[in-house]
């Protein structure tokens, strides 16, 4: 057939372009627009250049919040990934236990974030909360409103409760896809339980683990709702993560310019770290999975 040359293809791409423009590019450009200007309301804008970026990168408030984010993500990964693998390894592979476990695991994932926050906010209260009262009854000095460590512990436990299931489900999917013959071969070889895990299960789970680490990292790095509901960023600024700080700045203080600059930096950090994670982990796995 004769090939025809014209520009009709653009019409086919147009709907996507419009959609992406409205959903991503235009909002992002608005933020870029704010980040280089100063405003005092009344729709008056003054050119500020890169001042807001400069301010943000030189403010201890930003670096402290960023450090909290990294620490939080680190703790979350260090707990949820091993715990998720551990639970997945001990879930039944067949029988009536499978649907029961799967439903139990899926339940926390189905609860909206702010509801999870509210549940734990009430659960941990020293005056009426079950957890708070129980701990007080045991003689533990626990108060997430006043003690920074308790606030952190509460948020971490809450996130583990909420999201470990995701890691479990992903790992479980990886585990059940391993043919029985691998385990039989290992038994004939006389491989130990640890060797089976290290040389069969872990390599076979590698791909889903990559996804789990990426998802959990990005999600925990962008955490907002739960600490906002439970601690509101306190006590003091102890649980003020970048996202909470951003909202405080943009909506609480109406410092739109600095907030826009900060959100762009935040966005770039998330992208950069995700890219690093992805590259490192896919390169590490090269040769093992194809």
């Amino acid at each position: 057939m004769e090939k025809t040359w014209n520009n009709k293809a653009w019409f086919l791409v147009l709907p996507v372009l419009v959609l992406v423009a409205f959903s991503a590019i235009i909002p992002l450009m608005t933020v870029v627009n704010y980040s280089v200007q100063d405003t005092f309301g009344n729709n008056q804008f003054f050119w500020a250049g890169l001042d807001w970026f400069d301010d943000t990168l030189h403010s201890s408030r930003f670096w402290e919040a960023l450090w909290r984010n990294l620490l939080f993500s680190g703790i979350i990964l260090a707990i949820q990934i091993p715990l998720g693998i551990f639970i997945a390894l001990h879930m039944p592979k067949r029988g009536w236990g499978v649907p029961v476990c799967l439903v139990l695991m899926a339940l926390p994932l189905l609860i909206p974030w702010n509801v999870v926050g509210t549940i734990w906010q009430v659960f941990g209260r020293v005056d009426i909360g079950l957890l708070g009262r129980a701990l007080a009854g045991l003689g533990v000095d626990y108060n997430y409103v006043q003690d920074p460590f308790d606030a952190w512990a509460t948020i971490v436990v809450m996130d583990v409760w909420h999201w470990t299931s995701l890691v479990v489900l992903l790992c479980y999917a990886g585990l059940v896809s391993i043919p029985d013959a691998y385990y039989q071969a290992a038994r004939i070889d006389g491989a130990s339980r640890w060797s089976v895990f290290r040389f069969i299960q872990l390599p076979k789970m590698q791909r889903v683990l990559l996804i789990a680490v990426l998802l959990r990292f990005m999600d925990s790095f962008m955490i907002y709702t739960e600490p906002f509901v439970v601690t509101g960023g306190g006590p003091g600024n102890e649980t003020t993560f970048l996202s909470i700080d951003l909202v405080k700045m943009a909506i609480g203080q109406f410092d739109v310019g600095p907030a826009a600059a900060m959100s762009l930096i935040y966005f770039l950090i998330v992208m950069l770290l995700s890219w690093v994670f992805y590259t490192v982990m896919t390169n590490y796995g090269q040769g093992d999975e194809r």
Partner: protein
Amino acid sequence: MLELRNITKQVGAETHLSDISLRLERGTLNVLLGPTLSGKTSLMRIMAGLDRPSSGTIHVDGVDVTGVSPQKRDVAMVFQQFINYPSMTVYDNIASPMRVAGADRQSIDEAVQRAATLMKLTPYLDRTPLNLSGGQQQRTALARAIVKNAGLVLLDEPLANLDYKLREELRAELPRIFAESGTIFVYATTEPSEALLLGGNTATLSEGRVTQFGRTIEVFRRPADLITARTFSDPPLNTVAMHKSNGAFSLEGGVSFPATDALHAIADGAYTMGFQPHHLSLSRTAPDAVALRAVVTALEITGSESFVHLRFAGADWIMLTPGVQNYAVGEEIEVFLDPRLLMVFDGAGRAVGQATAMAA
């Protein structure tokens, strides 16, 4: 010597194996031949010690090993899927059984190099299994079994997932490689031709029973019953109902012919007669060959051979005949059958008047 005594395996209400007794000698090649779900894998798992039989015992050189775990059994197994440790290199994979056994570095290296040479894996020792072709992956698994130098080597349809050429190649090499080591070699397959090519002994399995065990050629030529004959025939065995009276066999449709010497002595009555697809021919192969008129129902031509599907007296037959034979579907043709090649089975399916089918 591996001896199975009255092995039965029941899983829930299902019987996977029923009352199997076998004696496998050292240095022999033994084929387990049977269709899918006939119990080959269940039997191998019990031989390996992966499963415990519901009843019956397993003896190695007279010692009862029924409850002994697989790693203490001196057994190697290769599966239909290509099973290797995914993150280890080919070298480490092959070395793994010896490392578990605690061998020293030097003897491991020698054994790995030797097995790799046998399996033509030397250039790939540094790769991981998933960077190999299917054939190379299975060679790695086979090399692991070789290195283990076990007294019992179980191969569960090891070539089923490989392409045709590789199968031919490996099938020719395998018996030779393992024969040298004096081990008991058990090979499960669904294909009669594979059993014949491997030689050795064959146990035919059907619905969890061993229907016959003996030298492969003997089992093929003189099946003890109709089930064995059917298991050991590909394309499927041709059968038709037959009646004997006054020293003559009569088939439906008015065909009648005198009983051959070997079959002369059997009692009058109803029988099933069976013969291999290649025993039918288009020309009179023997002076006393029986002429039969059958209707062509389908044709499959491979080039060197033609599979002519026929219908005779309510029975579906296949004639395997050389060259390209072109018939119209529905055409009635005359085919010939040498009565000396017939296998005759009584009402219970047992072969009668053996010494038949010698020309197979």
